[in-house]
């Protein structure tokens, strides 16, 4: 989730890679939560987003990067508290990636991706209860 965004194609690829990583991370986060519904709902959102990005990439004639077998998490998940922190940092990173990309995205998907950025910001707040002035990529 750290590729350089310089144009439409690299922006779409970065968002797709971010979705892959988030889907993987939420699988681990959900396993450590007493009530995993919130994590599973977030994972479903990222799966939907991934599918929309794959469709957009195909429509534009690009080839989509495949998902990797595994992704490294920025924090170690060992219990419920660390799972919530990881989820919050993950969503914060998503906000940063989307903020970096929206300028370069094709106009037909910018509105959709702006709404996804807003939903990620709210999820980040809901996981940790902390509002930040600026989100940063992990």
């Amino acid at each position: 989730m750290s590729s350089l965004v310089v144009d439409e194609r690299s922006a779409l690829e970065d968002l797709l890679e971010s979705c892959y990583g988030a889907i993987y991370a939420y699988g681990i986060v959900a396993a450590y939560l007493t009530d995993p519904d919130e994590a599973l709902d977030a994972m479903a959102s990222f799966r939907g987003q991934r599918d929309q990005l794959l469709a957009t990439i195909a429509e534009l004639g690009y080839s989509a990067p495949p998902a990797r077998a595994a992704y490294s998490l920025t924090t170690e998940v060992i219990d419920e508290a660390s799972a919530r922190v990881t989820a919050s940092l993950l969503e914060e990173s998503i906000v940063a990636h989307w903020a970096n990309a929206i300028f370069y995205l094709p106009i037909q998907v910018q509105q959709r991706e702006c709404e996804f950025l807003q939903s990620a910001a709210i999820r980040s707040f809901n996981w940790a209860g902390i509002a930040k002035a600026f989100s940063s990529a992990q």
Partner: protein
Amino acid sequence: MSKANSSYAFVLNRRAFLAAIGSTTVLVSSCSFANEATISAPVADAVEKIVQSKQALIADATRLSTSEPTIRAALQVVIDQNLVHIEALSPYLITSAAPLPTVSAAQLVDLPALATRCAVFSTNNLVTAISLPDPELSRVLALIAGSEMQHHALLLGLIT
């Protein structure tokens, strides 16, 4: 009484200072991209409107925190972070933002209205982010929009 007021003023100044220190990275990175010679008038106008809207929100939140002490801590987060947003946007202004017009005490804004305004700011700033020709300003505005959605969620959680 005056002692209490001066202590409160010190807290506000200290928080604003800490917020400014915390935004150093953003300021430095923004300064490398923007200066008066390269900022177009439409960009500066758009940023100035955003800054003035934030100044008005800060004024309303400050008044509300005075009348509703139980939610002062949450409102202070919103105030401090909007000050950081203004600092981050200041390199994109041709001149300093115009001073906030005097607002009478009768214009007290309630919490639901303030929460709604944060969400509206977020959406408006994203619209601006995708319409301006500067990728770095677009990124800064989109990050601010994310923060504003968090303020919306924070304030919504206080509404009973």
